[in-house]
């Protein structure tokens, strides 16, 4: 069941990203995705495999759901965040956007433990919340950094 839910969420996020009006070009969207993937994969590996603060299910389907969360759901959601961030210019709107994204990311964590995809041995949702906040900042700043090195900004819709 966990795998099906996570696959559906992955599909839903990818579809939402495909249909929404985007401020970022293909290269910019992909760049943000790649940067988040680097951070998330390394963080996940260190916390799970090295420090054993979180354990994952040994069931193949559940493990695939874990990989979907790590490599698809979280990075793609943050790509959507960066796109929406460009439409919202006021500080209050941007704070609300970050808080909503934070809540969605925490929901992924809750679902992951609920379906026994992961088990928190020496970890909790507060640590997740801090990490997700850091990840959102990385997403926003990586985009700004990339734009600074771009000669032109392409808009796609």
């Amino acid at each position, binding site marked *: 069941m966990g795998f099906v839910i996570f696959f559906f969420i992955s599909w839903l996020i990818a579809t939402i990203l495909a249909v929404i009006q985007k401020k970022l*070009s*293909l*290269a910019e969207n*992909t*760049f943000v995705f*790649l*940067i988040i*993937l*680097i951070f998330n*994969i*390394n963080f*996940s*590996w*260190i916390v799970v*495999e*090295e420090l054993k603060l979180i354990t*994952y299910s*040994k069931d*193949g389907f559940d*493990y695939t759901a874990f*990989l979907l969360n790590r*490599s698809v759901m979280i990075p793609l959601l943050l790509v959507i965040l960066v796109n929406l961030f460009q439409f919202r210019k006021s500080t209050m709107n941007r704070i609300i956007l970050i808080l909503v994204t934070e809540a969605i990311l925490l929901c992924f964590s809750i679902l992951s433990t609920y379906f026994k995809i992961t088990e928190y041995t020496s970890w909790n949702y507060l640590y997740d919340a801090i990490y997700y906040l850091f990840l959102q900042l990385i997403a926003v700043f990586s985009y700004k950094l*990339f734009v600074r*090195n*771009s*000669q*032109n900004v*392409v*808009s*796609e819709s």
Partner: protein
Amino acid sequence: MILWEQFDTNEIYILVMLVIVYSALFLSPKKLPRYLTIFFLVWGFTISSLFDFTIGGGLMDFYKVNDSNQYELFDFIMFFLFAPFSYFFVYFYKRLNIHPRRFAFILYIIGWSLLGLATERISTLMKVTDYQKGYHIYYSMVVFLIVQTTTALYYELIKKQERNQ
């Protein structure tokens, strides 16, 4: 996370390769805009991380990188080795005027996949990669074909979007 179990052949090989590929990167004439250079360096770094931490670890764990299954400093440094390969793939793709609708496109990807296999073979000889759980080097051909075809088509997509702006 450890630095290394023993500083020997594999670590020295990685350092030597880093010097060679980054010297080539900085000395080669600049053919790509700066943002595309950064993009494809990050692309190579990420793709190698994704495969190493997906099929090379976790439940699958088909190969061991460097001295142990633990995350070593040189496992991380090795990702920097893959970054210029991705850049040079696109660099020569542009220099040789490879077109996705021509036969040269197929030859180019097969050529780079064979080069990938050759460098992986050297990596195994240098004890950088050790296969386990029945994994064989020829399975990597599948990975190379997927990654390099995706890289080429992605470059084409970015170019197309630039033209259409």
